[in-house]
């Protein structure tokens, strides 16, 4: 079936429509606005509920984790591996706390299951690594400042630190929070 579209007179006359189009594009040039975030310099402000890289909360240098094994139990991706140990005061603590970030699906169920408010998800989202290995193997070592393998890329340079709302407790260095200079105001 042939569909015949009746267009108004000026639309059939091609030139007028061309000028309408040209006006639209030149308007874009004059009122130049972009939504681009210039990534390394500008970062998107994610919500505080964003689920990124894990950390073990510590209060006055003592990690909250008691190696109760609830998080590896609840973990649907089976990515948490804990080796429990005993402190001098008979308290249980994790000797090793490995999280296989390639397996982790960042569902946040470990955070919900934790009775001690120990394992938490930060809003660090830069976890890219050059090699496909079990990353974040010495999870606690990194946090305890003994990351010799350097599995997690160090965030260096000016304005590189992402917005870490609750990270001071984690014992990691907190850089200056860099509010985004441009782009939409609401967080994602």
């Amino acid at each position: 079936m042939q569909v015949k579209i009746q267009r108004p007179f000026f639309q059939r006359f091609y030139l007028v429509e061309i000028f309408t189009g040209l006006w639209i594009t030149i308007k874009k040039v004059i009122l130049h606005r972009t939504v681009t975030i210039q990534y390394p310099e500008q970062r998107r402000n994610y919500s505080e509920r964003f689920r990124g890289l894990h950390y073990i909360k510590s209060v006055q240098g003592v990690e909250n984790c008691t190696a109760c094994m609830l998080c590896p139990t609840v973990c649907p991706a089976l990515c948490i591996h804990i080796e429990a140990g005993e402190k001098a005061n008979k308290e249980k603590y994790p000797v090793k706390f490995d999280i296989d970030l390639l397996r982790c699906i960042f569902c946040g169920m470990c955070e919900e299951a934790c009775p001690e408010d120990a394992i938490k998800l930060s809003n660090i989202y830069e976890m890219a690594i050059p090699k496909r290995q079990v990353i974040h193997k010495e999870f606690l070592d990194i946090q305890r400042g003994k990351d010799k393998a350097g599995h997690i890329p160090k965030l260096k340079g000016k304005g590189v630190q992402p917005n870490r709302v609750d990270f001071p407790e984690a014992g990691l260095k907190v850089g200056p929070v860099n509010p985004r200079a441009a782009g939409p105001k609401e967080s994602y």
Partner: protein
Amino acid sequence: MMPFDPFLLLPLVKCLLILGLVLTVVPGMLFVERRGSAWMQNRLGPNRLGPFGLIQPVADAIKLIFKEDFVPEHVNKFFYAMAPFACMLPSLLTFAVIPFAAPLVLGDRIITFQVADLDVGVLFILAIVSLGIYGIMMGGWAANSKYSMLGALRSASQMISYELAMGLSLVSMLLIYSTVDLGQMAEWQGRTLFSLGPLAIPSWGILLQPVAFVIFFTSTYAETNRLPFDLPEGESELVAGYHLEFGSMKFASFMLAEYSNMFTASGVTVALFFGGWQLLPGMGYLLDLVPLTGLGHDIARVAFQGTAFMIKVCFFMWTFVWIRWTLPRFRYDQLMDLGWKVLLPLSLLNLFVTAVLIYGGVY
């Protein structure tokens, strides 16, 4: 022995100046195209190299020069090597006859501001422009790939179809100017068409022949293979068309040809329809303010005229970018329809009406 005449060097200087100008405009144009298109699409465009990304064309050029000059097995080696130059040469040649300022009288000599003050003027442009098609055909044929071949075929038929309309619209201009010399045309356009109080409206070609302008303008887009008529390289169906199999500097030569063609097309459009080197409104007052007399004033005049010409040309260069990122590509049958069924009869009609009007003494 005759004493050495420094004026003998003048054509050489002019050659180098014009060539340098054309070759400088190309990277600038690439930058404007990339940034302009980005801005039209709410993007940023290349902004990393240098202030505002101004060094980007240099980086592009360095990359293209140092890239491996790879020649595929299945090509016709001779024509494959020749095609980029056959494409580039006419595009660089055409600018030779376009005047960018009125002649300067220096004692008993007249210095014209065009490389070659040919008597054939416009006809030279038409002749050289139609040579450009050989480069494209050669490229498409030598590459021995079906995409290239189709692109070259399209290009050939497109350029031939639109050359007719373009030539006919030019003929109506020639009837009015009664000369083919571009310098005289520009001078002719300095006449006052009519006066609006203190404002003198010059008799620029576009005011005398708006229809011819529209036809000519449309045809230049088809001749330079730019959108909305870029069927020879239509990415979505032909990958890259006639320069698909070319790499490194050979590809760059094709791009160079395209962009210098745009520059020349803008130059011709300005020379024919926008008063050539005639000053823009307001520039005449500024020129009168220059506290110089005699030769100094003449040189200032030349500088002003050159600036006016370049401003006009830059506007049309921008129009090339502007239209490219506004209009979608024509379908092939629509392109042929427009060329043969609309533009050709229209230009014939325009020519007829112009002739009648001239016979009736209106122009």
